[in-house]
């Protein structure tokens, strides 16, 4: 982000543009580098699943072990933090968040992703087709495109609200969960408490909206920042300067996937729980 800020302040074009570059159009739909890479990721995941999980054996071997370990690990993570029925609802989505985000982030570290594209030619470099920096890269990790992170957050926002309404047996139940007086108080004290809890409920409602935005922006910021650093460092010292950052970004890739997934689970847990319900 520092490099981006420096670039913006001097009026220069950022090293990696915040928006994923448009490669071509399919009708009215613009196809960006991140959309292309999300197709590549989809194909990759589909191939892995077909190879490892098409003929599941009771005694697992090879790729089936890895797929089972991933699915079982994510299921345990979900079930450890949510009620069983909520975990059943949430598991497919949160598991997909982790797998897709981790894959997307890791594919961003593959040499060529983000560094092959169109840009200002570099005639001083000995190899042909050399450019200074790719202003339009052919591939870009979907998680470094705000459209994808916002799409994932929006999906989460809508589905988590649906789960919350389902869990609390209707919209009224959800409103009571958010704005209702907790603690089982009775008598005149309920009046000031109702005002207090209404104010708290407003903050809670606001936080429910902000959570989704925070999820999207946190992931986008981290991965876009990492991408910018890698592209910048690749152009220094013949690319050697990028090597330590690749190790760093490898960790960031997995950590960000885990953070997004964990936060999605925890937010779902706060929406779908009876722990703060008024006592009956």
């Amino acid at each position, binding site marked *: 982000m520092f490099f981006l800020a420096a670039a913006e302040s001097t009026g220069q074009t950022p090293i990696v543009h915040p928006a994923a570059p448009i490669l071509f159009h399919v009708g009215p739909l613009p196809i960006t580098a991140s959309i292309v890479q999300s197709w590549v990721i*989809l194909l990759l995941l589909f191939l892995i699943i077909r190879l490892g999980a098409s003929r599941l054996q009771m005694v697992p071997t090879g790729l089936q072990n890895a797929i089972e370990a991933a699915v079982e690990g994510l299921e345990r993570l979900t079930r450890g933090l949510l009620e069983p029925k909520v975990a059943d609802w949430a598991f497919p989505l949160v598991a997909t968040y982790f797998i897709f985000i981790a894959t997307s982030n890791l594919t961003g570290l593959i040499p060529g992703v983000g560094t092959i594209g169109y840009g200002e030619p570099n005639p001083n470099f000995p190899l042909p087709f050399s450019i200074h920096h790719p202003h339009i890269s052919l591939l870009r990790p979907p998680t470094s495109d705000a*459209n994808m992170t916002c799409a994932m957050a929006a999906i989460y926002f809508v589905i988590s609200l649906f789960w919350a309404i389902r869990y609390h047996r209707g919209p009224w139940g959800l409103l009571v969960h958010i704005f209702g007086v907790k603690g089982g108080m009775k008598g005149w004290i309920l009046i000031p408490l109702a005002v207090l809890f209404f104010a708290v409920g407003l903050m809670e409602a606001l936080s429910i909206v902000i959570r989704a935005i925070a999820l999207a922006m946190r992931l986008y910021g981290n991965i876009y920042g990492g991408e910018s650093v890698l592209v910048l460092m690749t152009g220094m010292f013949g690319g050697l300067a990028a090597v330590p950052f690749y190790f760093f970004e490898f960790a960031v890739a997995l950590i960000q996937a885990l953070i997004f997934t964990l936060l999605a689970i925890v937010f779902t847990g706060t929406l779908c729980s009876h722990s703060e319900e008024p006592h009956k």
Partner: protein
Amino acid sequence: MQEALAQLGVDWPRFIAQTINFAIVLWVLNRFAYRPVLRLLAERRTRIAESLQNAERIQKELAAAEEARREILQKANEQAARLIAEAEQAARQQGERLLKEAAAEAERIVQKARERAEQEQQESRAMVRREVGELVLALTAKVSGKVLSPEDQERLRAETVAQLPSSERFDALRAAASERN
């Protein structure tokens, strides 16, 4: 807000495209990975639980069988020991009985032999007396030169027999003779 989103490249067409992309990923993973793998894991858990139950049951049965085997073996050992003891006792009793019977038989045979020898001895003695009596009669008739009347013969025979030693005396003489030899 809208300007900030525009700077980040967020617009409706790309947003919708990425939403569809993610939805497809979600559907593919759920359809081809999560459901079959979770079903398999559940089935495997069930099988493992069944296997553990079976193993526990088999272990119990094995323990029971081992206990039964040990009991049977113990009973068999006890029975065998009892049978051996009984057989030994029966053999001992049989041996003793046979020994007694053999001893009695031997005693009986010896007694019989003794009686027979005694009888033969008496018969021999009687025969000797009779022959001696006849000899004395013949000798007397020859020496006297006359024919002895039946009364004389009877009297002479009685005297001769009376002068011969008794059975006890005869036995004593025979014993003395065998000692000398």
